[in-house]
């Protein structure tokens, strides 16, 4: 049995490695070109430059530091509050009895069927007309709302599968619903909470359409800043500073890279386990 090194095995690995590296090629392209000055950029797009120009990163950082901070604030607050509100609702749907439970759950579930493009424009006008204490809330509140249906659905299933004895024990100790949720249910379901958080995090970090409509210049997020930096349009004659542009792309991926260094395993497990089968 020389199975581990059969020709078929080598071919499969070679194809996978090639495809995998090609999928990462845009990242390589951004990194090597982020260290070039315009002359180096014009001479070759693929090589690692002989002389590095890290000052591109200073130029890029000046452009995107504010938006980066905005994106971090918007993403973290949105995802955390999504989990808080979804946990409360999922607890009520999974472990409490009250009239209208099925109806309200049906209404929540039905939201998965309402596509984003249908609500985009009315939402934009509605938010513009709504006086909010902070422009951040103009994107945070609709983002939390958009994440509720999916998060409640996943968490409800998880909460329902908690062994009854654990919940009974908590009740015997005289713990009320809120205490049970905080001290028993959430700690037991931490892996599910992390999965939901990561699954929501990616689209929120990448969100472009609604933010570009409702956020002002001071509160704009990273995707908006990148599009503005590029200058938009594929065939413009003005040549931007490509090195700095690429540096901005690299910087904008850094938070996700950091996050995934720690959470890649939970992300994969979250996606492959039952949590998204509903």
């Amino acid at each position: 049995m020389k199975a581990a090194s059969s020709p078929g095995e080598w071919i499969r690995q070679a194809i996978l490695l090639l495809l995998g590296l090609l999928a990462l090629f845009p990242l390589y392209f951004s990194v090597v070109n982020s260290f070039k000055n315009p002359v180096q950029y014009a001479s070759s797009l693929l090589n690692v430059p002989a002389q590095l120009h890290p000052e591109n990163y200073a130029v890029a950082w000046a452009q995107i530091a504010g938006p980066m901070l905005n994106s971090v604030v918007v993403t973290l607050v949105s995802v955390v509050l999504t989990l808080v509100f979804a946990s409360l609702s999922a607890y009520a749907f999974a472990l409490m009895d009250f009239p209208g439970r099925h109806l309200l759950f049906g209404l929540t579930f039905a939201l998965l069927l309402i596509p984003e493009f249908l609500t985009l424009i009315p939402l934009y006008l509605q938010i513009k007309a709504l006086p909010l204490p902070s422009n951040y809330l103009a994107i945070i509140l609709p983002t939390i709302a958009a994440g509720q249906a999916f998060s409640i659905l996943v968490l409800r299933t998880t909460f329902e599968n908690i062994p009854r004895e654990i919940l009974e024990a908590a009740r015997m100790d005289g713990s009320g619903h809120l205490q049970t949720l905080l001290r028993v249910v959430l700690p037991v379901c931490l892996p599910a909470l992390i999965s939901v958080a990561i699954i929501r995090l990616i689209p929120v970090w990448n969100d472009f359409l609604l933010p570009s409509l409702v956020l002002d210049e001071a509160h704009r997020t990273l995707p908006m800043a990148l599009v503005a930096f590029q200058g938009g349009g594929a065939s413009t004659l003005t040549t931007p500073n490509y090195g700095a542009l690429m540096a901005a792309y690299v910087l904008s991926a850094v938070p996700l890279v950091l996050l995934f260094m720690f959470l890649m395993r939970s992300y994969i497990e979250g996606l492959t386990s039952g949590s998204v089968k509903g």
Partner: protein
Amino acid sequence: MQANAVNSRRSSRARSTLLGRIWQGRLAYLFLLPSLLLMGWFSYYPAFTALTRAFTDWDGLNTPNFTGLENFQRAVSDPVMGQASINSAIWVVLGLFLAVVPPLVVAELIFHLRGPRRQYFYRTLFIVPIVIPSLVLLLVWSNFYRSDGLINQALGALHLSGLQHGWLSDPKTALYSLIFLGFPYIDAFFLLLLYSGLQNIPQEVLEAARLEGATGLRRVLKIDLPLLAPQLRLIALLAIIGNVQYFISPLVLTSGGPGFSTTVPALLMYNTAVKFGEYGYAMSIAVLLFLVVAVLTVVSQRLSKASEGRA
């Protein structure tokens, strides 16, 4: 008013009446309140606005007047909408292929690797690209497509200068350049879905197939594909729905041009509203798209039920 009614009945027989049970469940309603308020105000209400204002001359400023089916008649007879619908149909068909085939091929290749460690390594390799923000991917690719970009340089190096051109500025290639943006098209979620589907095939089935001499491509066609049918149907549905409503790359990279060569109905809806302020007309396009999505969903559910019935 309702609270008064609840209080007055609260005494002895309260538990048995509906109002009494509602009062009993008050903590549950309190738990649900934030979610329900947010979903009501930021999801249901805008959807209701879209569905009702589609029948009006809403301009965002004045009180909308009911205009019946006028917006819909205009949408159906608008030549731009016709071109946009054709573009969208091309996008949906090619996008379906790109959503299903590359992740399936990679899932099969990984699944046939020997040893769980090796499989884990390659599975991770294909998920890592999600750290690239989606707009960065679009912008880097628009750079590849430039007339002095990577693709034309590669064609020059291969002595194929005849094929060089501005990929996004030529109306003949702009749409296809957007559709085929993002090589090698391996969606991490679709890949994991198919891979875990393959893992769930019972060992006995694989063993039986091996004994009958079904290996390689024959096994894939005879065993894997039928058993992966639920995952493939889900991916197909998600890809179709996703591509019907997608318009970020035409919005950011080509503004729907040159001409209307990369305009899709969703972009037309966006521009009609945001650029021209014809919100009522924009909503009628949104409602038409919503109907398309709804019909496609229902049809695909029916088809999958029917095929399950046959199996």
